[in-house]
């Protein structure tokens, strides 16, 4: 008998993600992804000074403040054809890397690990055996029996109190949970430690950006960090040394803990390499520029169609002509007025709310399309596109991950298996390891450049009288972010942000093509449809973030998964 399951975690009135799936014979037969709140924020930017836009855009979202600020200044710089001094590029790159490392750590441990790790099995674990297992996997010095015992004691205290607190909503004891008590304890102990290391990454953002959650150091044309090697109030050797020490700790955690844990979990749930593939078109733009004119990058971009990895199309730059010309947004199934798909420079954001109707309009997210097709963005896209182009750093860590998963699980893994729920987790860990290496490289590049006596951090923007268009991109933790600006008379004429989660959470388009979340859920087997853990695993593997809207606290608290028999 078919059932409709709606997962609508309304506890606040921010824009959040609602997922509806139809389940037939214990497998998903149809799916809808929907964002439940209107943003429409872009309209606020019209008529404002383009030099101020980044201050507003970094308020789009509370998690990705930095990435929206960065895409905004890059969009205006692209429109004005403004060069960015090397110091500014390196400082920006370091901020972006540190933010991404923080974000990836938090995503895996705090936001999705408990889809795979059963906390209530931990009291049965043996800390000594866990330490032995952990030592066989990694040289991490905090894999000690004392650390494991302490983590187990915390869980025991919570479990015996009957008040599960932060763990009250897990699907504990679900048949899809299959790790041994020792492995559960191992991963959980790192969940506790992860909180420390993500904080260190955020501290790097804070030092360079003057402040988190909203950095203060950006400016169109560069950064506002004064560089003076001897002054304590400017960015000098003391600050740079502080950053190096923080980064070293974070890099070690990524390599010795996060990367290893993802490989171990993947090795123990190999069936998830066959689930959750969905849209096999991938998109990523080049990022981490290495010169002031944005022609050389540390991370490659391009696109892949229909899973044809060998047929990858590379992008030369972060605002590649093919990318600029090929993006449009379709509102057939989104709560907006409009007919034909529109390019972001002429994009509109006029609401047309009709209520949820799966056959018609059902989401506040528009459907972004590249050459008319839905695209999956995020670490998996970044890794596949880099791997396909033979990018050495991507190959290094992808091969390392595959080797580790094979060694732990005794299974054969190919890059093709990355088109999956586990592939998205593995790719995020691969990307984190790549970024960890690049963090140290860009730190050195910055120090070397300053040591040469180059203290330049800013080029003055110059406006022409003409109407100009620009696109600013960034490969954010959740994928390709693009801000599109039209400037006239030193004022913003139009502004659109096409954010990673709109690519992935996209509703259907005029052709009926599913967005990536929707497509990835089709055929997913559910052991207990009324406890749709498997749906959460796949949706969480994308690292969804709809927190781009409102934040009011709703004191009433409401329910979650509703099951309706069709």
């Amino acid at each position, binding site marked *: 008998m078919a059932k409709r399951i709606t997962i609508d975690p309304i506890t606040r009135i921010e824009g959040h993600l609602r997922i509806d799936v139809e389940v037939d014979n214990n497998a998903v037969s149809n799916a809808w992804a929907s964002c439940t709140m209107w943003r429409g924020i872009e309209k606020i930017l019209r008529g404002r000074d383009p030099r101020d836009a980044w201050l507003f855009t970094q308020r789009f979202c509370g998690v990705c403040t930095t990435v929206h600020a960065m895409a905004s200044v890059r969009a205006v710089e692209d429109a004005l054809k403004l060069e960015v001094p090397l110091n500014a590029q390196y400082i920006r790159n370091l901020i972006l890397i540190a933010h991404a490392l923080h974000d990836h750590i*938090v995503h895996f441990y705090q936001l999705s690990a408990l889809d795979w790790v059963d906390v209530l099995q931990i009291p049965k674990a043996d800390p000594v055996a866990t330490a032995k297992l952990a030592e066989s996997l990694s040289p991490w010095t905090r894999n000690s029996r004392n650390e494991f015992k302490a983590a187990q004691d915390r869980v025991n205290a919570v479990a015996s109190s009957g008040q599960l607190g932060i763990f009250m909503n897990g699907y504990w004891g679900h048949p899809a949970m299959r790790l041994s008590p020792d492995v559960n304890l191992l991963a959980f102990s790192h969940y506790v430690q992860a909180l420390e290391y993500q904080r260190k990454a*955020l501290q790097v953002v804070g030092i360079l950006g003057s402040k988190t959650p909203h950095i203060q150091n950006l400016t169109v044309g560069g950064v506002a960090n004064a560089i003076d090697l001897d002054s304590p109030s400017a960015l000098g050797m003391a600050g740079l040394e502080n950053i190096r020490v923080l980064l070293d700790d974070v890099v070690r955690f990524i390599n010795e803990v996060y990367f290893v844990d993802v490989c171990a979990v993947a090795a123990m749930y190999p069936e998830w390499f066959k689930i959750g593939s969905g849209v096999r078109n991938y998109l990523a733009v080049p990022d981490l520029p290495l010169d002031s004119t944005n022609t050389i990058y540390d991370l490659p971009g391009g696109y892949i169609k229909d899973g044809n990895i060998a047929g990858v199309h590379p992008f030369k730059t972060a605002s590649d002509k093919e990318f600029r010309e090929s993006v449009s947004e379709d509102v057939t199934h989104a709560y907006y007025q409009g007919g034909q798909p529109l390019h972001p420079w002429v994009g509109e954001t006029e609401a047309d709310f009709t209520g949820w109707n799966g056959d018609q309009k059902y989401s506040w997210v528009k459907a972004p399309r590249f050459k008319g097709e839905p695209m999956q963005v995020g670490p998996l896209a970044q890794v596949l596109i880099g791997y396909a182009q033979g990018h050495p750093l991507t190959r290094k860590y992808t091969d390392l991950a595959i080797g580790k998963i094979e060694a732990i699980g005794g299974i054969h893994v190919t890059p093709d298996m990355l088109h999956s729920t586990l592939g998205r987790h593995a790719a995020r860990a691969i990307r984190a390891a790549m970024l960890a290496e690049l963090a140290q490289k860009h730190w050195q590049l910055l120090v070397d450049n300053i040591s040469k006596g180059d203290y330049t951090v800013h080029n003055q923007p110059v406006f022409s009288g003409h109407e100009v268009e620009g696109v600013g991109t960034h490969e954010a933790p959740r994928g390709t972010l693009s801000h599109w600006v039209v400037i006239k008379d030193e004022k913003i004429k139009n502004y659109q942000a096409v954010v990673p989660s709109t690519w992935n959470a996209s509703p259907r388009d005029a052709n009926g093509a599913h967005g990536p979340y929707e497509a990835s859920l089709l055929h997913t087997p559910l052991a207990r449809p009324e406890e749709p853990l498997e749906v959460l695993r796949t949706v*969480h593997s994308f690292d969804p973030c709809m927190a781009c809207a409102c934040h009011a606290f709703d004191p009433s608290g409401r329910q979650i998964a509703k099951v309706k028999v069709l």
Partner: protein
Amino acid sequence: MKKVLIGGIGNILLGDDGVGPYVARLLTARYEFDEGVEVADLGTPALDLVDQISAKDAVILIDSIDTDAAPGTVLLYRKADIVRHSSGVRMDTHSPALVDTLLGADFFGIAPASVLLVGIKSGSYEAGCSLSEPVIASLDQVIAEVLRELDRLDVGYVSREHPAELRIWWTTEEKIKSQSPSL
């Protein structure tokens, strides 16, 4: 010395949701606080709020709320009121997470001893950078509640003889004046 965080939460781009950041600036402009008091515009934090509230003796949060009360109504919540309701299974992994933050801080053993949420019932969450009339009218009461909590905590503050510049950069100068009844 008590370590106290006074944090304004909310999105300045969505009408009355910006009341938290707004009040944080009003407080900084009007008052000087004892050492150890940090007044912050926290924006719209997700789980990173755990870091912000860790290692504090007391936390006072200012946020818009969604209840049946009339717009501009000020209601107070203690931790027990906030965490009473489960936050649910999270589909969107980064949703703002006051409940999760408080429970998480408890689990990690870094929770502040005292938590107060000063909630302001919003009038409008339409995209826009200004507050609605009923919320503007409530600002002095919101500030009074924050100060009363500081009194309770035995933490000192003094009213500035000459209020500092109110840097509400997201709205225009004229609006700032009209939206700040006692400035």
